[in-house]
């Protein structure tokens, strides 16, 4: 699955995107955040205040309890600050 990061989430993790293989236990956006938080310091830093971070599954806004089954692309980003 492809993960994308934007703005300070991208800066804290240190990359704009990556491919990951998820364990079967990761079923929702919230599960994915928890899994990412355990991947290292930079992820823990990026998701230290997970409540403010927004997610999109295949370019549609998603909530923590949204199922990720079948997703090709999941993005994480801060609240949008527009143009």
């Amino acid at each position, binding site marked *: 699955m492809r993960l*994308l990061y*934007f*703005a*300070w989430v991208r800066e804290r993790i240190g990359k704009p995107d990556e491919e990951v293989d998820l364990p079967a236990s990761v079923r929702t956006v919230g599960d994915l955040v928890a899994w990412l938080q355990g991947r290292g310091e930079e992820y823990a830093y990026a998701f230290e205040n997970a409540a403010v971070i927004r997610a*999109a599954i295949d*370019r549609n*806004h998603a909530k923590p309890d949204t199922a990720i089954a079948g997703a090709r692309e999941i*993005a994480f*980003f*801060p*609240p*949008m*600050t*527009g*143009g």
Partner: protein
Amino acid sequence: MGVRLQREDFDIGAEIAALSAGRTDVGAVASFTGICRGGDIVAMTLEHYPGMAEAEIERHVEEAQSRWPLLGVTVIHRHGRLVPGDNIVLVATASQHREAAFAAAEFLMDYLKTRAPFWKKEERAGGDGWVEARQSDDAAAARWSGRRPEAAE
């Protein structure tokens, strides 16, 4: 006409003229231009989510077209590094009458300023920083919710 995300500047007069060119049913064109302001900002960089930004803006243009009798809509949003005085965003809407043109332009700007997938990093003398979401912008966008509940996000 349409939605464009681009690094380059845009020609406001040409975009407005295009909405009524070659037709005589347009009686009203409203436009909004957002410009990078100065003050203590040296520059700003607009990051967007390519693909999602276009799709989301298109969806909101369709929503505007279903709410108001529009004859044309143009949305151009720049990304990349911009300095004070640079144009950032243009929304232009055409209709028979002014009410629809104004309402649709405001609706689209409220969306673009609050919920479109763009993030703004400012360069200041004291260092760089990501802009935080403004509460007054969220309040402006919330005005449009509930009017047509079935069309809410």
